[in-house]
């Protein structure tokens, strides 16, 4: 029963990061670059934000590997269907 006084991660720092990334997203969205570049950038930024939330706010960074498996397991399945159906349009 180790009641450690664990040092908390910098939650407010993450919050600032999220806010900045959101602003960045808004900026990118209205830059008149080529649609493809914008989409790639925006998706990248969104995933970055999502990762921040998952790692820090949902403490995945601090969980054991046994626990992490449960969190990531469904993700490939989410991708499979979308990719497969999209091939209808690009082939």
């Amino acid at each position, binding site marked *: 029963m180790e009641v450690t006084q664990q040092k908390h991660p910098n939650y407010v720092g993450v919050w600032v990061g999220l806010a900045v990334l959101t602003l960045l997203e808004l900026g990118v969205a209205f830059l008149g670059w080529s649609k493809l570049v914008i989409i790639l950038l925006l998706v990248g930024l969104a995933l970055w934000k999502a990762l921040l939330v998952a790692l820090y706010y949902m403490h995945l960074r601090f969980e054991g590997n046994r626990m992490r498996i449960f969190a990531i*397991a469904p993700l490939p*399945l989410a991708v499979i269907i979308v990719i497969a159906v999209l091939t209808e349009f690009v*082939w």
Partner: protein
Amino acid sequence: MATSAVPLEQAVHSEAHELPFIRKYIFSTDHKIIGIQFLLFSLLFLLLGGMLAGMMRWQLGFPDAPMPVGTILPETMAPDGILLPEFYNSLVTMHGTFMVFFAIMPLLVGVFGNYLIPLKIGAPDMAFPRLNMASFWIAVPAGILMLAGFFVEGGHAAAGWTAYAPLSADPEWTGVSTGQQLWLLSLAILGLSSILGATNYISTIVNLRAPGMTWFRLPLSIWALFITAILVLLAIPILSGAAIMLFFDQTIGTHFFDPTDGGQPLLWQHLFWYFGHPEVYILILPAMGVVSDIIANGSRKPVFGYHSMVYALIAIGFLGWIVWGHHMFQSGMNPTLGTAFMISTMLIAVPSAIKVFNWMGTMWRGNIRLHVPMLHSVAFVAMFVIGGLSGVFMASNTFDIYIHDTYFIVAHIHYVLFGGSLFAIFGAITFWYPKMFGRMMNSLLGKIHFWLTFVFFNLAFFPMHSIGLGGHMRRLYDPSQYQFLQPMQPINKFISISVFLLLASQIFFVINFIMSWFNGRKAPENPWEDNGLEWSTPSPPPHGNWDKSPAVYRGPYEFSSPLVEEDFLPQYRKLETDEEPVAATRET
């Protein structure tokens, strides 16, 4: 560390016997009671689904004759006892729906998942008993909504259990509106029930295993239920999402599946089968699991190749996610995708082969006791193979051009679902009945029921392969419309008559089930001389299952071990050479 038999903190439950009737049997949080509630619920739907099938078969065998007692049906279904085509379509739809969602799935997952998981892993109850209760009481309104569809204007859903849009999306095409909406609503609600159940099963199996119950000491039934729960957890929400979209198409005028305004009918099929194929494995994996347990018990031999059995389950569970397109070969989907799906589908035969041959390996040089559960389990293997092999024909996208949407598919469905799942369920019910109700089932009645069912099942469904190969389409109200089908009408008659006899044979099961409940011989603790933990408590087990948490000393299938005199060596029996299991001490 390592003192076994830790007093269970959940001994909260021990005051349970003072609970009032309603808390004990109706709104119970005891996994065993919930399992039995699911059992009664789903047997009712099994019976209903069977009756709908009987009506369908009357129409198919004797298209022009009024159905006996058919006149009690209202004008909108069967004027003068002759079924209307729209009512026939509802029958097909509801037969498939009842059987898949309200009979087989709750029987396997709801009943045996609930009943067996805690007992077989040595836990006092599920990880979340109240959630478990909620899961059952959410399923009930779903069932009621589904039944209600028969009584609304326009009739019940009539677009097949696969509800292909746009037929299902717009009342204009079928004349059915409320019925289809209730159908969708009911499935979405039932989905919630299944998801809560699956969450519970997974958490329980992961976190509540008794000391010594390591992953590779889990009985295969529990492994199968574990993989199944994962499939339920991840597949059902896809159906819920799709059902909600279709529901909105029906009710508030969205256009998801409406080709006239940018929607995609094929999207429905993709979503449905992305759920649907994992779903059919949901319907077979637990059956494979319980059959593995029963075959080991009946053969008095350890399961042949336990580890590969586990890996095969995992492989089937995973491959099941990447084959959905085999239902859509002829749908107009990208043909290259079709080839990819064919290959992945073919590969599923490999883990299935491992399972089949390992079951046979288990029986090889065994000392086989043909008790009723064993009979059903051997029949399961024999019938599942037929269904699986017919799957290989359809998996060939090229040959599927011809047999898609014919009775060959119907034959496949019933060989895997009836010959497979339902035989396993009969096996499992007869095997665990003594534990559930504390009474033995009558073995003579059981054998009569088994043989009649086995014979008439094959007489009814094997000929469907041949009419399917003759080109007989499925979901066909009146085959006599087509010249090329007319020569097959005698076979259709033969099938129908066999089905009526098959239905009649079920009376033996009903009688046995009900009579044994009240009059059966009192069951001892371990009537089948089995090895699982559930046989170490009284039949039926008390609330909380054990006074002390059991400890586990070995794998689940130590039959005919040279270490002991008897031909079984339970997981909970401590030999002198056994050490106490080491487990982690942690908060639960």
